[in-house]
């Protein structure tokens, strides 16, 4: 075997990992081997980093039904015009590049990716995708659509989980994918200004080179756009540490349906001069305008990061570990993620990776600390670990000894949406629940499905449901209830809804903690917000979008 340098090792890893996007690297005296190991290489140190193989190609073979057929009670709004050849010609005339238009006449198959959502539950029938390259182009498009009553769907990386990013009927898709430049970064203040279509991971890599970090991180980082993140007010893995986008986003540039461009890319942290307009756009899910640029405050990257993974015997133990972590780790705690045992089984099964601990426990927790002083952090972490082990709060655990191990441990959390999607689809509920009742939702739901006899586990192909699993950002009281299924089934849906929402309402939780409302939750928002609040929301919507062309049929009921 030839010399295997770090570069080769990395090439091997990179070709399999979804996470790594680094440039090639070097070091002194390094023999840069041109040969890359065969990809079927097994049992290498590198193989521990191998991310999930694309489990989605499995799913992709199944046809997704049109939303219009699946939900016949939702009707196309007759106020909206139908797309004509003249419309397409107009768009061609205002867009600077011919690659900015994907049109059913040129290439119908290319439209599929824009019409189908990540969960493969919703599929629209748009005949046109536009990829403008500037706010000016967006403005021309929207003004025309507004005048012509053509409905539109703004689309980022199309990783949204509530069916908000794809058309319901024939709405025009306006993709921000071609607006992907970093505009400026100020190393002193940490303020990044960039286009909405910059991919989250690219923004983060750019910042990493400059010793900073994007204040948001989530499993879809390789595809989602920062504009999409702002439009959904995504929460993610590090909200516990860096707070919500409502605090970190300093300004937006956005185009209103009538073509008006709001140039409000503030870079100031404090600015009490009138209504804070950007807040309307954060979490608006494409219903009031299109975000074309954002400015955001980015913290310095911590140079000491530790990752630990635990096994625990009951949810009560998890709560005690959480209380202790808050107390002992304090300001360096940057993530506290909960995964129940079944989620780890699904990940194990779909990736073939060995479990990180010698046993599999009913609950697993992933903790991350980030700080500026390695020794200080290690001392804190060690004291914490000794206590939780000593008091038998955690049954077993491990601490990543290097970056590769840290990344691999994170896969057991971040790879869960993909693992769940493996068999065909997932019913997803993203809820906030007070911590005392946190896991009861999963237990109650499991009982519901067991009683109905719909659960087939990973082996029995005759039943739709694989199981009922839960994981989430425990640090933010945010739970993801997931019901992975072999096929979407009205019986399953009937059991879940409105059961889940009523359950949440009783405990004063939120029916959507971070994924938003989109198409999936529109008719359930009243379980978390009262009629007065909804009425005021409708007035806001009307002010910005009186003709209702922006992402219709979604978000909140319009009447």
């Amino acid at each position, binding site marked *: 075997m030839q010399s295997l*340098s770090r570069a080769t090792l990395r090439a091997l890893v990179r070709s399999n990992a979804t996470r790594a996007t680094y*440039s*090639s690297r070097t*070091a*002194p005296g390094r023999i840069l081997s041109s040969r890359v190991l065969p990809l079927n290489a*097994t049992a*290498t140190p590198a193989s521990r980093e191998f991310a999930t193989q694309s489990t989605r190609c499995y799913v992709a073979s199944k046809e997704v039904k049109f939303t219009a057929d699946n939900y016949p009670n939702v009707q196309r709004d007759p106020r909206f015009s139908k797309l004509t050849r003249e419309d397409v010609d107009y768009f061609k005339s205002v867009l600077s590049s011919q690659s900015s238009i994907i049109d059913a006449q040129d290439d119908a198959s290319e439209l599929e990716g824009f019409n189908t959502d990540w969960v493969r539950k919703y599929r629209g029938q748009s005949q046109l995708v536009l990829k403008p390259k500037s706010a000016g182009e967006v403005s021309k498009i929207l003004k025309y659509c507004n005048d012509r009553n053509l409905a539109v769907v703004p689309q980022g990386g199309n990783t949204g989980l509530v069916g908000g990013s794809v058309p319901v009927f024939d709405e025009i898709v306006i993709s921000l994918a071609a607006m992907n430049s970093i505009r400026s970064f100020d190393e002193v203040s940490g303020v990044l200004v960039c286009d909405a279509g910059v991919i989250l991971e690219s923004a983060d890599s750019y910042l990493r080179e400059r010793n900073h970090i994007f204040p948001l991180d989530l499993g879809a980082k390789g595809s989602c756009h920062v504009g999409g993140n702002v439009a959904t007010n995504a929460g993610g893995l590090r909200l516990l540490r860096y707070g919500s986008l409502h605090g970190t986003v300093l300004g937006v540039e956005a185009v209103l349906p009538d073509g008006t461009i709001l140039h409000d890319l503030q870079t100031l942290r404090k600015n009490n001069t009138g209504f804070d307009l950007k807040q309307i756009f954060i979490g608006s899910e494409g219903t009031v305008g299109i975000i074309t640029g954002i400015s955001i405050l980015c913290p310095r990257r911590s140079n000491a990061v530790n990752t630990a993974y635990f096994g625990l015997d009951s949810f009560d133990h998890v709560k005690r570990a959480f209380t202790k972590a808050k107390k002992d780790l304090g300001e360096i705690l940057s993530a506290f993620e909960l995964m129940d045992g079944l989620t780890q089984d699904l990940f194990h099964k779909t990736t073939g990776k060995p479990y990180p601990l010698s046993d599999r426990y009913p609950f697993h927790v992933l903790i991350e600390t980030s700080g500026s002083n390695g020794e200080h952090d290690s001392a804190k972490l060690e004291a914490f*670990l000794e206590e939780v082990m000593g008091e038998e709060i955690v049954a077993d655990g491990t601490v990543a000894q290097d970056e590769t191990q840290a*990344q691999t441990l994170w896969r057991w959390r971040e790879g869960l949406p993909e693992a769940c999607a493996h068999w065909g689809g997932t019913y997803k509920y993203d809820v906030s629940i007070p911590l005392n009742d946190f896991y009861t939702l999963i237990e109650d739901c499991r009982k519901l499905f067991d009683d109905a006899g719909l659960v087939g586990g990973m082996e029995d192909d005759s039943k739709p449901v694989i199981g009922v699993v839960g994981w989430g950002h425990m640090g933010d009281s945010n739970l993801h209830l997931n019901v992975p299924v072999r096929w979407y089934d009205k019986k399953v849906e009937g059991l879940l809804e409105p059961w889940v929402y009523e359950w949440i309402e009783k405990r004063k939780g939120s029916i959507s903690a971070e994924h938003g409302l989109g198409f999936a939750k529109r008719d359930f928002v009243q379980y978390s917000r009262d009629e007065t609040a909804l009425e005021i929301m409708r007035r806001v919507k009307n002010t910005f979008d009186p003709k209702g062309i922006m992402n219709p049929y979604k978000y909140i009921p319009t009447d």
Partner: protein
Amino acid sequence: MSTLRILVPVKRVIDYAVKPRVNKSQTAVEIAGVKHSMNPFDELSVEESVRLREKHTPKTVEDILAISIGPPKAADTLRTAMAMGCDRSIHVEVPEKDEMLEPLQVAKVLKEVVEKEGRNLVILGKQSIDDDSSQTGQMLAGLLGWGQACGASEVVLDGEYLKVTKEVDGGTEVVKGKLPMVVTTDLRLNEPRYASLPNIMKAKKKKLEKKKLEDFQVRAENRLKNLKVTEPPPRQGGGKVDNVDGLISKLKELGAL
């Protein structure tokens, strides 16, 4: 069946998931403030030693000794090795500096330790990912006059003998040698375990003996001097084409079609 007394040398290197940067004066890579971890090949050596113990009857492996010749922080690397299952360790402390010891110096230190500690098997990484020298194991075998099996993808203990499957270009080679022996590890040998919390705690109490380079018969100065270190030329950014025709004409322009 003979009793194994294993020596496992481990080295603290820049974490292999981290991108090294060349310093301003182009004499070395930056090490200050950069994440370091155990050389991945050495993780394989540690794992293999522990597996040898787990696979055989309790007395087969008498003792697994880890050793690191490195800066003060190399002690962390030794703790990791002990958390993974090594019994004790020796830390030959050298000051943190840009220039590292050369393989021959390291091999000479190891030879003395092997003799003093009565080792009969040394398992090393086939190379370390910082200087990629790939010489220490071979030199050590030479100095000791022992047999060596380099680039192991499988190690089987059979009485007085070791049967080692080695990776060679385009295939494998199986060799058999009588103990004592030097074995170097290759990527496919095993998949190192995570250090469990209880073992991390236990490792803190295991013995870590401190030594200095002066305790050994080696000269500290290197035979070679690093003149210059440079990064590879930056990759040219990719260009974008508008459509298939554009792609084809671009490929033609570049002479690829």
